[in-house]
């Protein structure tokens, strides 16, 4: 028990704790949009494309998250552009961005002289090394998300539900689509450190699936997803610390186990 209390006095653990709270909030909001709009694959494309930016940042010696942000934003805009213009099948277009980003990343990392020690932490997450400025960036992101969803909640909901009807109503659907795509890109990038590129999709989908067991109301799914996301990631973080196993993967396990248990309870009831 003393171990447990002592843990919270460590600076690195406090930061990790804040990171899980912030990640649960931003992923809870954006993930609900992604899941209900059925654009999980799109988000996967943006996430993996950002790896190209991380590789380039290693090569030219700048902060990896800046490279990731640039690549994620560009791929988000690119995917939305090709989706609206047509011509290329949407899922094929996403796969192209997805693999191009990864391939560029691999090539840039290969070209980077010497050893790239942090590479694994971007691929699989490293929540215990989250920095102070990364936490601030997460706070800013949450502030943006909350304001956008507060001001345009109904527009976002209606467009997600029936884009054609919203367009016929004279809503600026395209503007909202681009805006939301960019918010997805930022959310993905700023949460990469928590669970990593490979695993970030889980934070955007599993809490929502769990929330969806209990409600079919968009707003309530957001709130419950934040809650489940937080419970899952904080318990995953603790377990990983005490068992000395990778935190990102452990968080995924706890999220899935929670989903499975609640689903089972719901079935048996």
């Amino acid at each position: 028990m003393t171990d447990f209390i002592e843990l919270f006095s460590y600076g690195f653990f406090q930061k990790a704790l804040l990171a899980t709270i912030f990640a649960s909030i931003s992923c809870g909001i954006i993930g609900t949009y992604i899941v209900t709009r059925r654009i999980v694959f799109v988000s996967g494309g943006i996430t993996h494309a950002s790896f190209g930016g991380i590789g380039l940042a290693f090569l030219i010696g700048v902060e990896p998250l800046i490279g990731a942000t640039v690549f994620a934003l560009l791929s988000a805009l690119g995917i939305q552009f090709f989706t609206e213009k047509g011509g290329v099948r949407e899922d094929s277009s996403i796969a192209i961005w997805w693999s191009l980003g990864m391939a560029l990343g691999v090539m840039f990392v290969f070209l980077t002289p010497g050893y790239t020690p942090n590479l694994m932490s971007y691929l699989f997450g490293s929540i215990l090394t989250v920095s102070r400025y990364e936490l601030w960036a997460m706070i800013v992101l949450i502030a943006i998300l909350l304001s956008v969803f507060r001001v345009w909640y109904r527009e976002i909901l209606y467009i997600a539900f029936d884009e054609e009807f919203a367009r016929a109503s004279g809503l600026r659907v395209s503007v909202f689509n681009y805006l939301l795509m960019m918010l997805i890109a930022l959310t993905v990038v700023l949460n990469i450190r928590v669970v990593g590129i490979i695993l970030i999709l889980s934070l955007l989908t599993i809490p929502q699936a769990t929330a969806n067991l209990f409600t079919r109301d968009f707003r309530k799914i957001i709130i419950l997803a934040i809650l489940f996301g937080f419970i899952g990631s904080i318990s995953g973080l603790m377990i990983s610390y005490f068992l000395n196993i990778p935190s990102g993967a452990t968080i995924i396990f706890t999220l899935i186990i929670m989903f499975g248990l609640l689903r089972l309870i719901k079935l048996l009831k």
Partner: protein
Amino acid sequence: MNEMNFVKPLIHLNQVTFAYSESTVLEKVDLKIHEKDFIGVIGPNGGGKTTLLKLILGLIQPSSGKIYFREDLPRHKRPIGYLPQVKHLDRKFPITVLDVVRSGSMMRPYPFLNKSEEKEAAMQLLNNTGIGHIYNKAIGELSGGQMQRAFLCRALISDPKVLILDEPDTFVDTHFEGELYERLKTLNEQMAIVLVSHDVGTISMYVKTIACVNKTLHYHPSNQITMDDLSVYNCPLQIITHGEIPHTVLKKHHSHD
């Protein structure tokens, strides 16, 4: 001459052509939608029915030709209520019936003063349509008929001058179908209606005029349509029979008087 001809149409499609890069979907279509019109739009699949609706709704722009709206109508919003084909919608989407109906108010030229006025209007429509008691259910929990009712309410909350329905008779029980058409008859006293259907038999009992769309548009100023007409207009339709209806459909009529 019918005195209607002196009244300006609410919507006027003038020589409207729509083409994708290679293929022409609609060619030089002329259509006038007047007040109190009830136009049944029929035609084969892929004949351009949905494209015609999308043009009227402003979802796509004509490649050539123009669509005019009567001068007194609000310019910033088209005064149209729209009931799309529900099969394209995601039934698992987490949205309540009330919110679906409220979403239709985006289409209003003059928005509601506040949220409670909007909610009240939505509830009143739901009650009038007989689904007021399930306003808080998720849209996916509804039966086909209830869902169509909800979407009809969404189309009506904007107080439209023209109501457009795209195959509202699919996925609906026959009970609601009859009810829907009776409801449309009443609504037609306040607004023009454009109804797309593949079921010529049923709609010919309710509509006043028929537009046959198969790349070109042939306007038939009566609700009686004969087999000869269909072949003349190059409208290879499937006539769905409903008991006695075929006699009505096939009743000989004396050409354009």
